[in-house]
């Protein structure tokens, strides 16, 4: 059971957090919010965006239940997505061992993101802070507060190894 990387995208198409593990045996390996991942982030965003878009168009609008993707499997990894109504995407790239990581992603949203971003009044809830230049995928600001990162590490480490 291996996790390769974790990403958060916001409603402005920006990657606002990413964590990549390079060694499956070492949960402290890898990078956090590395600038080198910006191209990968854009590609990942595009992949999820396109498939979500098409899926929603294909869903039966009369039933009133909008369809949304949950996982995307490629030859080498599986992408798990959890998309909130506020436009946040929590994304996990893993091996094929587990079918769903929905609960993991939901936990990160409710117990880490909400706690250290939404309820933290010392930092913005929207990293573009109303600057149009940072919208539509052009923003580079990331969640970097130490409690968020520590809580995430502590939650995901046992799962990574």
């Amino acid at each position, binding site marked *: 059971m291996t996790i390769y990387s974790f990403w958060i995208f916001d409603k402005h198409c920006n990657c606002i957090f990413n964590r990549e593990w390079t060694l499956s045996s070492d949960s402290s390996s890898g990078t956090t919010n590395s600038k080198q991942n910006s191209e990968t982030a854009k590609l990942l965003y595009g992949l999820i965006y396109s498939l979500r878009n098409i899926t929603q168009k294909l869903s039966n609008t009369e039933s009133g239940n909008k369809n949304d993707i949950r996982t995307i499997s490629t030859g080498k990894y599986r992408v798990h997505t959890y998309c909130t109504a506020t436009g946040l995407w929590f994304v996990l790239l893993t091996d094929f061992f587990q079918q769903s990581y929905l609960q993991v992603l939901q936990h990160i949203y409710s117990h880490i993101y909400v*706690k*250290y971003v939404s*309820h*933290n*009044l*010392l*930092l*913005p809830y929207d990293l573009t802070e109303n600057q149009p230049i940072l919208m539509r995928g052009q923003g580079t600001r990331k969640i970097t*507060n*130490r409690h968020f990162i520590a809580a995430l590490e502590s939650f995901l480490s046992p799962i990574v190894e």
Partner: protein
Amino acid sequence: MSTPPIQTGQVLTSQQKAQQFKLFEDSLPKVNQLAFQLLLNEVVPLSMAVEEKVFDDKIQVNESEDQTNQKAEDVDNSDASNITKDIEDKLHITPELDLPSHVLIHQISTTNAEKREGVIKRLQSIGFNIGSKLTELLVFKNNPNIRFKDAEVLLIMKFICRDVWKQIYGKQIDNLKTNHRGTFYLFDYDYRPIRNFVVDGDISDPSLLEKETSLAQPFLEIPIGIITGVLSSLGFKSEVVACKASFVDKPDGTSKLNFPKGVSFHIQIVNQ
């Protein structure tokens, strides 16, 4: 734990009284604690936003008092703006919004001393009001656990540490120290309103902690107000009470993922 059923006319044991009071408390209407905490926390950026507006108004009033010709024009202007406001109300246009909360909170630390004083006064005043009303609520609701005789200060402090803190912050004060001559220290090592507060930066940077505590400082003003409000409504008026708050180190073993410092409230009561 089974207490014998309460029969009317029977003298109640203290255990039965406590149980009866608990049933009474549980039956009262309730609200989500989160709603309450968010409301209380938002008062801090609110105070800054109001201070800015009130400050500007104060200056405008002073300026128009200096120029009598301006006065006539001001009256005309205000008529026009009143009409615009009426129209806006009828069209239900969303009012102009303030800056986001985190920006206002940062502003408190960077604004001039006069405005910061204004913000602090406002926060303490709201806290004072809450403290007084809460005392009325708790003391006069026939709570068998609370009894004040001769305004004994220590009892009142314990009331604050146990009942007041539990009602408002969901926990009791962790430690109470006193020299039995009017000086009290109340320690809250996990002050809930700021528990999840954190700023960006590396923990190895010494200025990080300073920044965090200075941004969180205004969040201590409401409890200062609450404490003085409680004391005032129980006979210790503001003239004889001084209350300050500061950040202190936490005892070892507490969670590293919460706000790094605990809070201490230093209360000085004159003539004790």
